[in-house]
Structure formats: C-alpha cells, structure tokens
C-alpha cells in the first residue's frame, strides 16, 4: 500500500478504486462489511459505489490497516459515559500530514507568512489522542516562527495570553492564533470581565475550529466574528473557521483569508480539497443529491490511508461545486460527527414524558 504522502496529490480517478482495493484486503472488518453489502473490488467500478463506514463504527470496530503496536498515532473520537471513544490508528501519518499542511498553507498562509504563533490549547504531548492538537503541532513545526501554548497541565494561562497579545500590539508584530472556538470565546469572556480589547497588528490572523470534544455549546458565527473583531481587532477577512474530524485525514476551511489575499469576493461554504470527494445523500432514500440540495455528508478522502477512505457522517449539508456547506452543529462537529448516543439522548431528550 502506498504511504500516501507523495501520491496524495495525484487525484486521477483510478486512485480511489486503488485505495479501496488496498483497504479491502488490509482492513478485515471493512472487507466483511463490503461483502455483506455485496460491494467488493470485483463489483465496484465507480468511486461512488465504495462502501462508506459509519463514523460510529470507529467506536465498535478496529478499522485500521496498521498492525496493532506499529501505529505512529492513535486518535480518539469523543467517548461517553456508556460508550468507549472511537479509535483511529494510523501506521503512517505521511498522507495525513501532507493533506493538512497543504490545506492549512493555502487557507491560513496564502502570503507565505511566517508568524509568531499562539495556540489556544495544549501541546500535543498533553493531548496525544487528539487529531486537532496533532494537526496544530505539525503546522506550527512547519510554519511558526515561535509558538506559545496557552494551556498547560490542563490550565488556561490567561495572563500569559494578555501579555503576549499586549507585546505583539506594542511591537507591531502580527500573530497567528490557533484554537477551538469555545476556547477563544472563553478567553474573550475573560477579556470582557476586565473590559479589555486589543488591536493586533495588520497581518494577524486566526483559525478557530469546533474541537471542544463533548461540548454542546454552540455560538452563532456572527457572534464569534464580532468577538474576534471587537476583542482582538481581527477582521472577518482574517478569521478562518476549520472543520475536521478524527475519522478524516483532511480538513475543510473557510475562504476568508484566501479570498482577501487574492483580492476577490469571498466564496461561501468551505473548500473541499481536490483529494477528497463528498457525496450528499438524501436523508430518507440515500440517493445522491444534486448540487445545492441538502443531505447526509459522506466523504471519500485519499488522505485516509490506514483507515477506510469512505466515511458516512451524521452531518447535514450540501455541496456546490468544490464548496461544502455545513448546517448547524458546526462548532460541535467533532463531538457530533462520531455520534454521542447516550449523552445526546440525555441532552436532547425532551424529558420524562
């Protein structure tokens, strides 16, 4: 099987079927599932027919081609009080890293900037099972001039955040801020208590993502954008929302900064990278929906090498050309994407009736 990294950007049609064949022979529960559905390498002739595993299956089955003990990374999806977390075991992160770096560079660093970086979150070693902090670790190693992590031993260091932002403001040094939406909003609440605001130097930018596992807190996008503008002086053009899930090697980004850089109007939705294809299925019939029609999102991701490339999510959205429009739950996506059966039940249930 290819390691993916170098070959990721060859997106010719046979690549999907090749990957399917390789995974059919190396991921045994997946092969059993394909046989059960009657869709095997002998019968599948189009990438659309490749069986997609439900995202929930990572909780119940070992869906990895990596031999146990040989994996270089294990990511966990959120667990609950009654269900164990899903596990994504990777024997190689080459394709994953190639994908994440390419997308990040394109959407956060289109100007090739090398910036002092502040991570509103922990170092990877403090959260070794998180795909988000793995991604941040890779990105900062590749592109950050300096990196400060604001969460240490599980504690947010707000005073340090204040100091580093103040210094950047005073020196006119632009910053790259990375973190979860929830964490940024918590910091803004802290700033609000002191009535404090910053105006970060031009070129400063932020990536926020719904990475706070298990949380059901959601914010309206306008509220988040307004808070970044008011508290940090980061305009919408320099705020980029990312959407990812542990079960996918690739991520999806807003167009804000790229559009600003290219001097064109912003495109809606999030970019679907060329090595990922998304099908939108009618929620009732599972028939493929035309562009612009909403439905269940199923992703086919060439960055998934050791785990099945086709993943059925619980997310609802639509696709228009190479843009993905996600509905609701965006900020809780990581929690939602892998299903929280019992806790979702507890939180959403109308109560004893």
């Amino acid at each position, binding site marked *: 099987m290819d390691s993916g990294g170098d070959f990721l950007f060859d997106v010719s049609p046979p690549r999907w079927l090749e990957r399917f064949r390789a995974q059919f022979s190396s991921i045994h*529960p997946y092969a059993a*599932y394909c046989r059960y*559905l009657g869709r095997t390498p002998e019968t599948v002739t189009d990438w659309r027919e490749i069986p997609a595993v439900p995202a929930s299956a990572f909780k119940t089955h070992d869906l990895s081609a990596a031999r146990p003990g040989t994996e270089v990374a294990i990511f966990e999806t959120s667990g609950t009080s009654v269900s164990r977390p899903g596990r994504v075991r990777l024997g190689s992160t080459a394709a994953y890293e190639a994908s994440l770096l390419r997308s990040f560079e394109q959407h956060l660093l289109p100007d090739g900037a090398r910036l002092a970086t502040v991570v509103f979150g922990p170092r990877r070693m403090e959260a070794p099972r998180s795909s988000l902090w793995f991604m941040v670790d890779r990105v900062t190693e590749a592109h950050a001039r300096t990196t400060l992590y604001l969460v240490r031993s599980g504690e947010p260091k707000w005073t340090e955040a204040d100091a580093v932002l103040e210094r950047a403001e005073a020196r006119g040094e632009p910053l790259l801020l990375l973190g979860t939406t929830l964490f940024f909003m918590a910091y803004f609440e802290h700033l609000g208590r002191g009535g404090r605001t910053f105006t970060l130097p031009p070129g400063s930018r932020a990536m926020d993502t719904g990475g706070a596992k298990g949380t059901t807190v959601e914010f309206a996008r306008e509220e988040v954008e307004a808070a970044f503008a008011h508290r940090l002086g980061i305009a919408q053009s320099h705020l980029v929302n990312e959407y990812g899930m542990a079960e996918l090697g690739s991520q999806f980004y807003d167009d804000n900064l790229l559009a600003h850089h290219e001097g064109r109007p912003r495109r809606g939705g999030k970019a679907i990278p060329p090595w990922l294809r998304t099908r939108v299925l009618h929620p009732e*019939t599972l028939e493929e929906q035309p562009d612009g029609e909403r439905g269940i999102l199923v992703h086919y991701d060439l960055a998934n090498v050791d785990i099945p490339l086709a993943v059925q999510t619980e997310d609802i959205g*639509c696709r228009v050309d190479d843009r993905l*429009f996600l509905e609701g739950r965006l900020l809780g996506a990581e929690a939602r994407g892998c299903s929280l059966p019992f806790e979702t039940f507890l939180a959403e*249930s*109308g109560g*004893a009736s």
Partner: protein
Amino acid sequence: MPHEPPRAPQVNRPETHPERRPLDAFYLPPALAAGAETTLQSFGAPPDPIEIRLPVVTAEAIARWIDQLRAAREKHLAKRTTAATVRTLNRVVERFLDPRSKQRTEAIAALSRAGSFSAPMLAQALDDAFQPLARGGLARWLGTELGSTQALDRPVKGPGGARRRAHGPEWMLQIYAGNVPTVPVLPLLSALLLRSALFAKTGAQEPLFAPHLARAIAEIDPDLGACMAIVWWKGGQSELDRVALDRAPAVLAFGGDPAVASIAQIARRDAVVVLQGPKLSVGYIGATALRRGAIRALAARAAHDVALYDQQGCLSPHAYYVERGGMVAPIAFAEALGSALEDASRRLPRRAPSADAASSVQMSRAQAALEAATGRITGVVESKRGTEWTVISEGSARFEPGPRHRVVRVHAVADVEEFARAVAGSERYIEAIAVEERGARRERLIARLSELGVPRITTVGSLQRPTPLGTHGGVPRLLPFVRWTTIESGSAVKPRRAAPKRGAPKRSAPKRSSPNRKPPNRKPPKRRA
C-alpha cells in the same frame, strides 16, 4: 452559484391548508393579557411554517404576572371546593374526548399543522391522555393520592385514623418539554386540583397544546382560567428563568439533563422541586408468551407502543428483550415486529423526520449492517421506503438508547437475569417495562423486575397509556406538593401526678383523654363517598 443552504428541516407539505390565521402559542387570562405585547413568529419547518403569536416575555412581565396569578388564586381558587373544580375539569375531559367538540378538533388541526405528529397520532394521544380521567377518573386520582376527594376541603380521616387536611402550594411553576404534546395534561390539572395558581413555560418544540388546554378550561370556568398563565421564552435566558424560579414555592419541570440540572440549581431552597429528566422504556417478553398463534397480535401491540410519538416520549420502548426457548424464536418476533411496524406506519403515520433525525437513523442502520457483517448482531429488518422503521436483532442483551424515530432493538436473552445485568446501573433511565408472560411465570417475572425499582411495569401495548393513579418517574403526581395539617385529638401523655408541694397553689387534675373522643359541640365528620 454559491449560496447558503436552507437551515431548517424540511417536512412534507400537507395536502390542504386549513386556515392561515396565526395560532396563539400562549394563554394569558384577560387581566394579564390586557397589557401584554405580542409578536408574530414563524414556527415549524419550511416549506410550510405557520405563524404563531407569542407574548413578549420580560423579567418585569413575569414578576407582574405571578403577582396577578397569586391575587386571582386568593380570590377564585383558595377557598373553592374540590368538587367544583372537578366538575369543571370533568367537562373539559369530556370535550377533549368528544370527536365533534371544537376543543378536540382544533387541537388536532393546530398540532398536526405545527407539530411533529400526524392527525391520527394526535387523536390517539388525546384519547390516551383523557380517557383515564373520564368517568370518575379525576376523583379516583385525588382519592388515591390524598385518601379522600375532600382532603383539601376540610379535615378528613387519614391513614391510622388521624384526621388531616391537605394544602396545595400557593402557585406552581411548571416547565414542560416539547416531545409529546399531551404531557402537560396531568401536571396542569394537578395544579388546579391542588388549588394552586399555575405559571407554566412550554417547550420550544410544542408551545401550542398546554395553552389550548388552559383556554378550554377558561371557556368553561373563567375563575379557574384567571389562575393560569402559560407562555414560552427562549431557553438559556437565565434572567427570565431566575425571576420565575426565585419566586416559585413549587416547581415541576421536564427536560433534558442539562435543563433540569440548571433548574435544580436556581430554584429556591425552600421550594418543592420535582424534576423529570430523560427516560425511556423497554419491553420484556417471556418464553411462554412466544406462541405461534399469538405472535402477530403481540407484535402489533409492541409496534403500537413503538410507533406512537415516534419514540419521542419516555414511555416509548427502545428495545425488547425476548427470551429464547419459546415456541417462536426472538428473530421471528423481530420479523413480526417489522411487519407490525409496517402496518402501524399506515395506522399511525409519522411526519417526515428532520434531516438530522433521518441521518441518525441512517447512521444506526449502517452501524447495524457493519455489526451484522462482522457477526456481532443477528440482523436488521427495515422499511422498504425511507427511514420509516428499523428492527435490529441482537443475540444478547445490552442497554443503549436508540436514535428514536421507530428504530427498535430486539435482544435475544436467556432469562431475566441477563436483562437485569444489561441494565444494571442504568435502571434510573427506565420509566417503564412492558412485560408479556403467562401464568405463574408472569408473577415471578414481575416480582424480579420490580426489584429494579423501575417506576412502572405494564403490559405490551399499554406503555403509552399510564394511569393517573400511578406515578411519573416513581413520584406521585400530587403528593410531593401537598402540605398536611394533622388534627390530633388529645392523645397527650398523661402527666405523672406529683405530690402537691407544700404551699403550692391547688390545681385541677388533667382530664383523661381518649383518642376517639369527639368534641362535644361538633358534628361527626361526614364519611367520604
């Protein structure tokens, strides 16, 4: 061209549009409505949302309404006889059961336009909610809980012979959930029966039925109507919640875990608070009930419980635990249940689920297929079209809520102990168990299941029609809110006669008292009917 997708779930457009005037999603008696500002809002899902009228709810308005309700209660309800209230409520119950009444037809029309359920389902919901209250049901309910229908009117003989009198709270705050529209029926009536004014907040998904019921009561009896107000405000507006909770001497709230936890935190320390959190139900079918000739009827009853309210309620079964060793195997029961759910989809049609809900069903189907492929479960049967119904068969017991919307698991089990082990630690999430078994085995089974402490054990097919004489979540419906005055009749300890001290003033000896002695100048209490 890029565009933002539609945000709200789609529903089937109904064939006909009855009328388009906005529906009042609140009830305020005339005195409170006088100064209330209202707004029109779109409610329900595109492409066919309806307009509802809502009052503008502010902290100041809530405080004022509560004061006005308390005054109205003092004037109209505090000294009213229970019989007078029961008379009115009996008429209300009759109207909701009368297929030609305006109250029933309007309720079904409005809820089927706005809510999540079809008209046949709503008709069934009204029958299930009101039939147990008809023909003396209200009086039986009062009598069962309070020992007498007159316990609120005057002292009556209680357990052990002592006389006592019941008092309801001055007013109650009730917070409803939106999953099943008729859930507010018993709570709302319980407040009036306890002579309490009622200030209620409806669930966001279903703000129509509780106000409709209050209006029906007010039409018959404006005095009772003056003592109720039912409105909705957006969840998470803690300042509004706080104004009501800061004042409420009694709170009854339904909701998800985070909602009830927050109510518990904010409520007054001295308030009586009853919280009904998320629950679900299950079924247990013993081997002797699995007879060839009976399986279709049994499956039909099980399917009725699953289909009603599309498993949104706490009385909805998410799983049946079916014993091996009967004449019919658990897998055959699962197939019969599938056929019965197909029938139920015509008799009790569902409304098209939201895309999110359908996605959860599809996820659980795909997961079940994967588990079947890898030998973890026995198989899946599902509706030919759409996500109408799904039956997942498993070879052993486990406990996990399904995604609702008529997805039900059938677990083959060896015996009741396997079931008990599977639910161990989760018993508190089970509201009811529907049991099917015959003869002496049934009694033994029920005795074992009752050890689990689950609030209700009933028969398959009766899950959705709880008797008001039972409890909700194991808690009686009236008693938690009642304060008692107990009248003792002088069974005082006879003081020991001490030798009079020299020089002490002379005292008359205390009279002997008998516990049964009647006061000489009072009539004996009437026996209750």
